[in-house]
């Protein structure tokens, strides 16, 4: 047969032939990022691509120039090296584990057949063209084309859960031309496989195989994915199987689909980056100013201070020395430890999610898991949830409910367990009605009905695709020899293909009625085929199946030509029940100000019904559905405009939702993307049906581009693109396999756990990160401001008040540990959060981490620096103004104030917090007393001196009261007279002692609140607009 098209993307695999052995890569798998030799340079390179690290490296290098270094270079090098070692060892450990698993896979023994002899070699020695001989339960070492199995019918079973997450066994077929070869012949077979270049599509393999003489039938035989055994799958229930290696090593389909996921940056991270840049700018300004005035002081005053011995004429770079000194002095403004601290905290948040008992799904025995440990804060700032329907909101457990055949409407309720949901529901339902499928294999099926067997020969399968929305089979009746086409599919895919003159009205009505009940419908149709017609078609079909180019569309075209003039048999309806807790969860999330959109591949009516059932939309008159439909493009665009106008005018008073389908979306995206984006920003709810996986992802992208934080949740392979596109992807580890859960950042067992994931974990994580990041800047700025103030008393010369040891310990030790305690902090209890989900709007709007709150922290930092500095220099004036002592007094002041700042900002004290905050405080004194006992240090005896002075302790108490008094007074007045919602909830918790006490009253308020919430949250977008740009810009 002719090869239809020649593409350049091709490889020819000569079976059992050494000549082409080395033209492709070997079967050595390597997932490692580094090798032993390139680890250090490559890892350093990776780390230094980050701005922060570059900055600190430059600072550290400048420190080496002792002429300008205010303190020992160790103050920067020490933490920098520690941070580098921590990151590098994490990378190295991960890479080493990858290496070990690669090594294990590469050195596994496999059997190959070479010119008829069986040999055992290492998996990594397999080359393209080798015949690999597999035994039962073997892991498949590379991608193979199956050429023989122990099964006389030429089938074998593979478990592909490693690839697609589906645990059911897949059947694989030996291609027809090698079906009749004996085991001996298989070992000697020669031939060529023509296949595309490696790709990562595990559902497609469009290839041909031709065997050489002495095999007589040397016609090219089409190969599909059903003739392959893919790497990392397992051979099951088959004694042996053998295949030709076509893709090896990292070029296999599983190897190609491995890829490093793009690292996601949370909104909070982006904000921290922005604030860092702001601080950096501030630092440059401060340095330039101090440097300028420092040079002026030097020229006017410094030259007169004879004891400084300033040379009259300095080197050419003299004017740079003082600014550079200040640059080094002020480099501590940007906390070097912030990334490590945040990474650590985020790791703990992720662990809390993994550990959460209340997110454990008993039914499927799956705990929640956060695959991405870095984005927990984003959960607390989610604005849009885009949810799949089937399997996510519903159980994906199909129950055959009704069918409409001819005129009668039958009821039958059967439950079943199955792999392929709808089909098995039908088969089971049929068997309950005494029509049993008793046998089914590759080419035939038997049905037992009313005491007799009927046999059908299965001639062709016209596969289901999401474009065709239907599938058909061509069968031959074993008794009569008649050839039949049987089709099933979506109503719009079947009913228009009905033969002329048939009454399809009643089926349309039945479909309508079933959809109203939230049932999934399927239409069935059939047609007699003439022998000739079938033969002719069958030839075309084979050609299309063999084509290497555009195979899918060619097949679709051929199928299309056959599926016409159908006799409509009837409509079936299958129920897919809502998952437990879905309506409550959606209500809660909507109360929390999150907009929930439903994206489904299902029909509009079914989708709307599910939407009603799960509280996504309410019935008229409190809400209104705006349907965006139309026959022509103009109609659709006009209805979009109309929906937008209604939405704009009434969204304040009514709960509006828009409904659109895939076709409409396609047209809208082509012509009027902007106005759709505007509509999307207004609508709290949307139901999008008939969506393709790509369209789901497109919707996410639209919302993302409008600056919203999106969460995509789904359970099936068709949701993967959406999940990956969204800021946060959540996968339900459900019945459609683990594909979605694997691609997602978080995987949970049930939709209802989303409530805890967002409201509890997300919210707490956001709050905690907001504190940790801002506090990190606060403490760095605090000590930096003191240094700057000291500069004015030291002739603007860039002297460091603090010694190297203190500076290093301050950043790495004294101030890092107490702040970590905030990872245990809960501002309000979980119960309160779930009772008042509206509180999430706080974190959504970024109220706890934005330039305004940050300025508050800077202000506090400056105030505390002033307090510490001036109290210290006033109390330790005159004869007491010894450098080491004064510096230690100022440092102690910082530590005291810091302990109280953390205490004051902690909302709930658990024992780790108390131990860490005050243990750190005690540790500060212990460490400094120990350091004071070492004669060679500058600090020798200083701490002993100070601790013996009453004036030291009196100064500390004064510093704390002056530093914290106004903070406390301000906070009290604010909490009391201008409280935030969080404060109020804290007060409610407090005044009720136990939150349960007012449960009754609360439920009474609930209904009122729900009604109001929608209004409040709708207007939120306007009222909080001053917060929004802070996040999105």
């Amino acid at each position, binding site marked *: 047969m002719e090869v239809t098209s020649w593409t350049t993307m091709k490889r020819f695999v000569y079976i059992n032939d050494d000549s082409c052995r080395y033209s492709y890569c070997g079967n050595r798998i390597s997932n490692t990022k580094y090798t032993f030799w390139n680890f250090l340079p490559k890892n350093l390179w990776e780390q230094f691509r980050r701005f922060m690290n570059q900055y600190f490296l430059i600072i550290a290098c400048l420190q080496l120039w002792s002429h300008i270094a205010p303190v020992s270079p160790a103050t920067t090098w020490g933490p920098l090296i520690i941070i580098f070692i921590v990151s590098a060892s994490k990378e190295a450990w991960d890479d080493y584990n990858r290496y070990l698993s690669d090594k294990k896979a590469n050195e596994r023994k496999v059997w190959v057949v070479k010119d008829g002899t069986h040999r055992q070699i290492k998996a990594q020695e397999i080359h393209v063209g080798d015949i690999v001989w597999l035994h039962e339960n073997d892991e498949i070492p590379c991608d193979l084309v199956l050429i023989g199995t122990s099964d006389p019918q030429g089938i074998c079973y593979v478990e592909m859960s490693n690839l697609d997450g589906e645990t059911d066994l897949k059947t694989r077929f030996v291609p027809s031309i090698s079906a009749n070869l004996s085991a001996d012949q298989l070992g000697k077979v020669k031939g060529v496989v023509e296949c595309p270049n490696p790709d990562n599509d595990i559902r497609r393999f469009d290839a041909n195989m031709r065997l050489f003489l002495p095999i007589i039938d040397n016609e090219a035989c089409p190969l599909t994915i059903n003739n392959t055994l893919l790497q990392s799958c397992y051979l099951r229930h088959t004694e042996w199987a053998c295949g030709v290696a076509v893709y090896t090593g990292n070029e296999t389909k599983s190897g190609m689909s491995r890829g490093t996921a793009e690292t996601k940056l949370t909104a909070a991270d982006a904000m921290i980056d922005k604030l860092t840049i702001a601080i950096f700018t501030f630092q440059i300004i401060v340095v330039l100013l101090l440097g300028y005035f420092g040079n002026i002081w030097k020229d006017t005053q410094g030259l007169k201070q004879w004891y400084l011995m300033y040379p009259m004429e300095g080197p050419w770079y003299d004017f740079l020395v003082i600014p550079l000194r200040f640059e080094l002095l002020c480099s501590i403004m940007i906390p070097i430890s912030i990334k490590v601290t945040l990474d650590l905290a985020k790791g703990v948040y992720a662990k809390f999610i993994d550990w959460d008992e209340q997110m454990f799904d008993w039914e499927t025995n799956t705990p929640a898991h956060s695959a991405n440990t870095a984005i927990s804060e984003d959960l607390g700032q989610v604005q849009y949830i885009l949810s799949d329907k089937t399997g996510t909101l519903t159980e994906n457990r199909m129950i055959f409910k009704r069918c409409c055949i001819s005129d009668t409407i039958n009821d039958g309720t059967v439950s079943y367990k199955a792999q392929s949901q709808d089909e098995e529901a039908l088969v089971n339902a049929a068997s309950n009605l005494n029509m049993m499928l008793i046998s089914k294999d590759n080419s035939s099926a038997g049905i037992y009905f009313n005491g007799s067997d009927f046999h059908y020969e299965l001639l062709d399968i016209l596969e289901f695709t999401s474009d065709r929305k239907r599938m058909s089979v061509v069968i031959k009746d074993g008794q009569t020899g008649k050839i039949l086409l049987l089709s099933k599919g979506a109503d719009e895919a079947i009913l228009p293909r009905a033969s002329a003159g048939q009454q399809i009205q009643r089926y349309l009505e039945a479909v309508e009625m079933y959809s109203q009940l939230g049932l999934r419908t399927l239409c069935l149709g059939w047609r007699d085929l003439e022998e000739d017609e079938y033969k002719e078609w069958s030839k075309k079909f084979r050609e299309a199946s063999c084509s290497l180019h555009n195979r899918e569309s060619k097949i679709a075209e051929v199928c299309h030509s056959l599926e016409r003039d159908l006799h409509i048999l009837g409509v079936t309806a299958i129920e897919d029940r809502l998952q437990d807790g879905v309506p409550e969860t959606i209500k809660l999330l909507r109360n929390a100000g999150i907009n929930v959109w439903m994206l489904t591949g299902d029909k509009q009516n079914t989708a709307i019904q599910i939407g009603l059932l799960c509280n996504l939309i309410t019935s008229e008159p409190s809400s209104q559905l705006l349907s965006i439909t139309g026959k022509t493009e103009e109609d659709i665009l006009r209805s979009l405009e109309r929906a937008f106008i209604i939405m704009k005018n009434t969204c304040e008073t009514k709960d509006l939702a828009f409904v659109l389908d895939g076709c409409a979306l396609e047209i809208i995206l082509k012509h009027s993307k902007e106005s759709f984006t505007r509509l999307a920003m207004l609508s709290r709810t949307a139901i999008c049906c008939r969506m393709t996986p790509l369209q789901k992802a497109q919707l996410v992208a639209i919302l993302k581009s409008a600056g919203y934080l999106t969460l995509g949740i789904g359970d099936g392979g068709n949701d993967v693109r959406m999940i990956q596109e969204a800021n946060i992807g959540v996968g339900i580890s459900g019945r459609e396999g683990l594909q979605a859960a694997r691609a997602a950042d978080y995987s949970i067992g049930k939709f209802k756990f989303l409530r805890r994931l967002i409201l509890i974990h997300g919210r707490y994580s956001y709050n905690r990160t907001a504190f940790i990041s801002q506090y990190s800047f606060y403490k760095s700025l605090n000590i930096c401001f003191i240094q700057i103030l000291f500069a004015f008393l030291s002739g603007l010369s860039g002297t460091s008040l603090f010694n190297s040891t203190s500076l290093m310990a301050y950043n790495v030790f004294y101030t890092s540990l107490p702040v970590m305690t905030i990872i245990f902090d809960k501002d309000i209890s979980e119960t309160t959060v779930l009772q008042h989900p509206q509180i999430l709007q706080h974190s959504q709007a970024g109220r706890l981490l934005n330039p305004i709150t940050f300025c508050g922290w800077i202000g506090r930092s400056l105030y505390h620096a002033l307090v510490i500095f001036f109290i210290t220099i006033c109390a330790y004036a005159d004869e007491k103004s010894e450098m080491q002592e004064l510096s230690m007094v100022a440092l102690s002041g910082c530590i005291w104030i810091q302990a109280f700042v953390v205490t004051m900002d902690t909302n709930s004290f658990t024992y780790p917090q108390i131990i860490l905050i005050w243990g750190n405080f005690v540790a500060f004194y212990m460490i400094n007393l120990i350091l004071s006992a070492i004669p060679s240090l500058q600090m020798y005896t200083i701490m002993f001196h100070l601790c013996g002075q009453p004036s030291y302790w009196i100064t500390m108490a004064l510093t704390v009261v002056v530093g914290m008094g106004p903070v406390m007074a301000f906070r009290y007045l604010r909490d009391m007279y201008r409280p935030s919602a969080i404060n109020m909830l804290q007060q409610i918790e*407090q*005044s009720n002692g136990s939150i349960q006490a007012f449960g009754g009253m609360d439920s009474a308020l609930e209904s009122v609140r729900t009604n109001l919430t929608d209004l409040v949250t709708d207007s939120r977008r306007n009222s909080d607009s001053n917060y929004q740009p802070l996040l999105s810009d």
Partner: protein
Amino acid sequence: MSSSGHAAGTSNGGSADAAAAAGAARRNTRMPKYSKFTQQELPACKPILTPKWVVSVFFIVGVIFVPIGVVSLLAARDVVEIIDRYDEACVPGNMTQNKLAYIQNETISKVCKRNLTVTKHMKQPIFVYYELDNFYQNHRRYVKSRNDAQLRDASKANQTSACEPEKTTANGQPIVPCGLIAWSLFNDTYNFTRGNENLPVDKKDISWKSDREHKFGKDVYPSNFQNGALKGGATLDPKIPLSEQEDLIVWMRTAALPTFRKLYGRIYFDLKENDTITVSLNNNYNTYSFGGKKKLVLSTATWLGGKNDFLGFAYLVVGGLCIFLAFVFTLLYFIKPRKLGDHNYLSWNRHPASR
């Protein structure tokens, strides 16, 4: 503290079925192991700023601070201090226009007599300080210009790194002690007499014991010190080890502020009110070039230190403010009472129009 020590609440509704199933499925489950820590259910105490709490804190702080302030102030007031600025007065009348020439001219006698009147009875020991003003011992160039190893260890005399620009003599000999700090050692001297009675100044133990014992070597002797063309301050007797050169040790404890006092010695005599003390001083040290003041200070000391009433005043003011705030908050609470924990304050429980 109005903290209610209740455990962080958990939602019991959702876990009821979970608990029922727990028994059966415990054996073979991937369920995370329960602990209060992993479930974030550690018992927590959640204090909030209630009026009662805040008012009592401010009040108690005030009540503690005021007496401490009074005691500190009394202590500071107990200290008798005589300060005499002599840099201006010791310049001969004909040279007031050219003080720099006066101080730099070695031929002019720098001896100067000052009479001090004791204002109040001073009990021994009386501390003698010199005070310098506008003198930047904390300057980056100055404060680093020393080498501690060299001071401690005789064998490390050659270690003069960081001592720029007073490292070595012109012919490369290391200076001990090197660096600007030592080089600019203060060299004014004071002798006190009361009438005809000599008041000896005890210059022993004016430095820190730890410095004498560990920072300045007993076998380290000054060498090549002040031999350069440019003489800074005092010279050192090369026969006395550094550990006994107490003026140097005191001077090398650099001051953090541009105005500072350093201990010169102690007088172990009581000074009576209206006693006149004659100070005969050698005004050698140059503060004229940068307009710095020089003062001689005689002072007694208390448990709190010298005559510094900052802490006393600060405590009185802060304590007073705290009590004042406590009253203001109490008043505010009665004028504008607000019930804590009222649901109706929550924005979503109010009509949006009222926001």
